[in-house]
């Protein structure tokens, strides 16, 4: 029983990290209807810049992280100018493909800058074992969960209490109506992509700290996608809840199901959970109900 709980909690905490990546997807999808495949590349991009600045240039993290944030805002601006603006009113699949283009361009750019060498990214989150009764937990996971919770609370406050947040919600609700009351969509998109960049920086710190910074890190995207699906493409709480479900499900499956049907099932297990769930509820846990009219 104790072992079960340990696995469960470990899985839940890993799920928080998936949710973090999924969060960036949700923000952009909500505000612009773009399925941003490049989110994972943004995570890697941010992590590589932070790691590179710290290790190669000798900057302290207090300087490297804000600098990376500035760079992410720049990236958001460039993406809006170069990619999104000329593609207004294109079909969603075309925009989706262009984000795959962004995915490769960002990775290529970061590699031109920093090479594909693996780096450490240790911002000083302690990773000690903590005993809670008889249960063994990692302090790294707990602190990560706290960071993510803070981030989510911050995002909620931002979207509920600030003027810009209200603008974002208006755009998410109805592009045309928002435009007709004088909201500039181009500014909103830069803001949204910048926030997604911020989320990517946080995700980069957390994932980079856990796995080290290296190009294979983009594979976290393939972990985050089923989370996104299960939670619904448009729901921030959905991303968190689904992250927890998938993290726990995956950890339990690896331990209890893995020995029976062969190892390595974590590459697809989350997808099968998401797929089975989607058949029952095609818009995900908390996604907006899809209404179709002719």
């Amino acid at each position, binding site marked *: 029983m104790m072992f079960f709980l340990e696995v469960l909690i470990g899985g839940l905490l890993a799920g928080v990290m998936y949710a973090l990546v999924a969060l960036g997807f949700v923000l952009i999808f909500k505000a612009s209807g773009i399925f941003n495949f490049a989110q994972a590349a943004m995570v890697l991009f941010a992590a590589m810049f932070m790691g590179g600045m710290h290790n190669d240039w000798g900057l302290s993290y207090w300087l490297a992280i804000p600098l990376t944030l500035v760079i992410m805002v720049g990236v958001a601006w460039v993406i809006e100018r170069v990619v999104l603006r000329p593609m207004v009113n294109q079909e969603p699949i075309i925009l989706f493909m262009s984000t795959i283009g962004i995915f490769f361009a960002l990775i290529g750019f970061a590699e*031109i800058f920093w090479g594909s060498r693996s780096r450490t990214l240790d911002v000083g989150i302690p990773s000690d074992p903590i005993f809670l009764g008889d249960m063994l937990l990692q302090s790294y996971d707990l602190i990560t969960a706290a960071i993510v919770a803070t981030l989510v609370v911050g995002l909620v406050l931002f979207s509920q209490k600030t003027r810009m947040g209200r603008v974002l919600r208006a755009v998410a609700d109805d592009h045309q109506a928002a435009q007709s009351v004088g909201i500039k969509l181009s500014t909103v998109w830069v803001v949204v992509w910048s926030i997604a960049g911020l989320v990517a920086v946080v995700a980069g710190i957390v994932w980079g700290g856990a796995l080290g910074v290296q190009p294979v890190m983009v594979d976290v995207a393939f972990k985050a996608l089923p989370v996104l699906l299960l939670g619904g493409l448009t729901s921030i709480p959905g991303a968190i809840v689904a992250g927890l479900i998938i993290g726990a499900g995956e950890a339990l499956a690896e331990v209890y199901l893995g020995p029976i049907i062969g190892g390595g099932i974590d590459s697809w297990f989350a997808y099968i959970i998401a*797929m089975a769930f989607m058949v029952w509820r095609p818009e995900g846990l908390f996604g907006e109900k899809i209404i179709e*009219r002719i």
Partner: protein
Amino acid sequence: MIYRESGQFKKTYQADQAILPLRQDRIFLILVLLVAFLVVPFTASNYVMNSLLLPFLIYSLAAIGLNILVGYCGQISLGTGGFMAVGAFAAWNLAIRTELPMPVIFVLAGLITSGAGVLFGLPALRIKGFYLAVTTLAAQFFLVWLLQRPWFNNYSASGVISAPDFHMFGWSIETVTDRYYLSLIILVVMALLAKNLVRSATGRKWMAIRDMDVAAEIIGIRPMPTKLKAFAVSSFFIGIAGVLWAFLYLGQLEADAFNIYTSFDVLFMVIIGGLGSILGCFLGAAFVVLVPIFLNIIPSALGLPLSTAMISYIEVFIFGSLIIFFLIVEPHGMARLWSIAKQKLRLWPFPY
């Protein structure tokens, strides 16, 4: 001047329904086929055949398969790599476990892939759009994992197995020219099949579903058989492409070779070539095969002192940028550029 339709009257229903209504187009196609069958094998070097033409032909076939699903039926799929792997492994296992003749094995491998396609297409009855696209990733990851189980590679220790030598109708496939001819023949036959299929009632039903599935349902098109048919046909094509990829191009089988990036590559071909166009599949495949090779050649041709690693990074960057550039310039793909060029050519040299 030359490209005019004046004087070409359609006197029969048959002529009216021809795939290429213009005589000039027919002549052009025949010339292309003649070059492909009679000139290329005798002039191209082994390198060109092996690393340009074979991948081009096989990718074209896979792109046609995916285009049927994405371009004609509107169901986005990211599972192409997984289905190619199913085709390849099905053919290999049939080849070593049974005594069936090779053509039968090819068709059976295609049918097995169809089965897998239908199975993973079932959620498409409820799930739509991007939700479906991500769901099809399940096929990609699950199938590749499944095919890495020891039974499928006959308990080989390394997990990499070589494709068997084989012959068809007494023609043993050995040299690169043989492999080229076999791919070319299969591609031509299947492209013709696809072209006719998308012009048929089935193809029109697919397009109706693509344009608006609820409306299509109301005018009496049953979504379930139509969508599943698209998944089955598309997977059949992709499965055969997988067999060719493993048997003729790589010469060995490894489930990991059909990873998620294969799926993306094929999706690029379909989108850059043109959604809903068979011609576009060829153009897109040529683009995706050629661009990395050009990007590889250019720096050394210019004499830039770059390390191989740097070249590969720049390649990734430029590849991504080119995709964005292409989508901005012509979101409907190269097939649209081609038809615009033909329109212009019809009037040339007059302004209208």
